[in-house]
């Protein structure tokens, strides 16, 4: 059963359609990528899911029931892109305050905070003030305050922005762990390369509309161009390549990139090379990156130009 189902959701601001008739469904335990360039409507969509905005049209089902912001937000952890903490507050108090606002009792919150602080080596921070923390440290704290109340749905908007690789990995590992423990994660970003490895399922939005929906693998299969990289142990000669099976896209001394023509199989190609007396070292399919797919989808629009750079 999906934890979150969105049906024909729309939200308009004065002059523009921020979110236009978007439907999607997210299964329990999934790591879900919400992708799109800046200004695509990701944040507006998330704000509707977190009950900050009311949709103009459409419905949101949370855990099978119509979304009820007042009660359901206790089961949602949201780390917005514009995030921060009260600078003058002590770290422990801050975490406690945010956890209590999510409905945890004081004692529950305290023990959970201690647990998380131990996991992240933050035990000694309790009485420090937020303003004394480095950026990476406060990002860690921010993450802890987001997931402290064991939310069923965790929404992270650009979670890695401003994080160094060490902390980014730490957070990434936590995301995997939380998903394994049954939490669902929505991961919103405009950096497509970040999600390829993490996400099970992605949705691409542009200008308020959904333009792609599927698993990372499905999407790549759908958009693959039958490109292969073949490397050989012996040198490649021009006469080897005059063939109707494929077109050569790129050629080096002992490797080529080819595009297989319609109507043939990989075996046909490999067979051909073997017959020519070439010894194949590797034969790999080149799948398009999400970034390339996105550019292809929005080709010719200003968004594509922005992403080509």
């Amino acid at each position, binding site marked *: 059963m999906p934890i979150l189902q969105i049906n024909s959701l729309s939200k308009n601001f004065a002059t523009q359609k921020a979110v236009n008739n978007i439907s999607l469904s997210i299964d329990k335990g999934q790591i879900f990528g919400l992708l799109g360039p800046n200004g695509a409507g990701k944040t507006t969509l998330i*704000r509707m899911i*977190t*009950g*900050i905005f*009311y949709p103009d049209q459409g419905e949101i089902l949370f855990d099978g029931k119509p979304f009820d912001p*007042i009660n359901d*937000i206790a089961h*949602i952890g*949201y*780390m*917005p892109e*514009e*995030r*921060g*903490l*009260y*600078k*003058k*507050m002590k770290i422990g108090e801050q975490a406690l*305050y*945010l956890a*209590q*606002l*999510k409905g945890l009792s004081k004692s529950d919150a305290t023990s959970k905070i201690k647990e998380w602080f131990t996991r992240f080596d933050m035990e000694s921070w309790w009485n420090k003030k937020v303003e004394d923390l480095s950026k990476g440290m406060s990002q860690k704290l*921010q993450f802890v*305050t987001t997931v402290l109340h064991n939310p069923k749905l965790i929404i992270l908007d650009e979670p890695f922005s401003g994080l160094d690789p060490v902390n980014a990995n730490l957070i990434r590992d936590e995301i995997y762990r939380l998903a394994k423990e049954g939490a669902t994660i929505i991961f919103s970003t405009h950096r497509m390369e970040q999600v390829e490895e993490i996400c099970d399922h992605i949705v691409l939005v542009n200008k308020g509309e959904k333009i792609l929906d599927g698993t990372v693998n499905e999407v790549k299969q759908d958009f693959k161009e039958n490109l292969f990289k073949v490397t050989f142990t012996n040198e490649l000669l021009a006469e080897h390549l005059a063939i109707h099976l494929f077109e050569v896209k790129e050629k080096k001394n002992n490797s080529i990139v080819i595009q297989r023509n319609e109507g043939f199989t990989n075996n046909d190609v490999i067979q051909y090379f073997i017959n020519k007396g070439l010894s194949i070292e590797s034969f790999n399919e080149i799948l398009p990156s999400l970034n390339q797919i996105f550019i292809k989808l929005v080709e010719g629009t200003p968004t594509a130009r922005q992403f080509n750079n």
Partner: protein
Amino acid sequence: MNKTILIIKREFLTRVRKRTFIISTLLFPLLYLGLIFGMGYIGEKSKSILKIAVIDSSGLLDQGRVERANAADASSQLKLITDSANAVISNFSDRGYDGYLVLPAGATVENGLDKLTLHTSRTLGSAAEVQMKLGSILNEIKYEKLGIDEAKRKALSSQLTIKPQNVNDEKANSGVASTIGLVSGFLIYFILLIYGSQVMMGVMEEKTNRIAEVMVSSVKPFQLMLGKIVGIGLVAFTQFILWIAFIFIIYNATKATGGAEGSTINSMVGGVQEVFTSLNLPLLIGSFGFYFMGGFFFYSSLYAAIGSAVNEDMREAQSLSFPVTMLVIFAIMLMTVAIKDPTSPLAVWASIIPFTSPIVMMARIPFGVPGTVQIWELALSVAMLIIGFAFTTWFAGKIYRTGILMYGKKPSWKEMIKWAFRK
């Protein structure tokens, strides 16, 4: 509702625990008392006797008359100089004079004395004092010349005293009433401005720290705003109660130590007692509490709306809050008018309209209810203020909801009003 209480608690505790709160709470009454006593002390000290050399070239005056005049009023001393006039003129201060005055040669009581010059470094008030004393000496000479003796002089002068009596409330002592009115009006004025801007800065803090969106994903924006306003309102209230407690302690302490009969402290204590017995204290305190809270809610929600609309730039906030601050200042101007004539239509309406009522009504109430302030006026004013702050809180909540998530350009008042009426 539980969440609002959590927010109130945080807003209250973080402020009350701050060192600046403790210092300002302790220091303000000390500074205030210091100012009052300090000014009294300086005033007392600077009251040295004015010494003026009167260089009489006309020969009108004689030592006896001057001496008698000095004896009658010891606050200034005139010294008649008949010889070495030039030496006195060139360095009067070395000789212990504060200034000198020349009566020209050939002047008579009737002629030539209407315009004299007092050469002095103490210009403030000294001329009037010398003028009075010299005038009385000259009058004496004139009386003698005209043959008017002591008895006739008494018959000529009339003694007249006029005391105002409040027609609306016979018990009300207008002096006491206007002082109490002025003090409470000013207190509310200060609270509105100081704590109103604290609310504004608190909201701005949430924006600059980028925590606003984190918060509104847990609580409704309205709860966040209300929690902040109530929390800061309680801080103001706490500070206030502490001050009243201090005053009470100081008052009782001075009363207990007593001091010499007829000393300033004793007469002050007596004065305070007299004031308290002549006023309807429960009504005064009750209405102060109401107008304090009502005015605070009314204005601080507007300040909260402004805080939510601007970015971290303090100047933006100032320019946007200027119209609101002007309203508060306008109220204090109306208050000074209302104290002079508490039943004028201007005073009545200013004390009913919620923009000015917290300050103006508080200034009118000490004059007496019902008397100066009719019951219907008070009831209407209370009702209007409740409607008023319900409206501003609602209105501000709408702006706040949009503004708190907006970064970038500063919106105009027009745009903010548009936000308020958007679904």
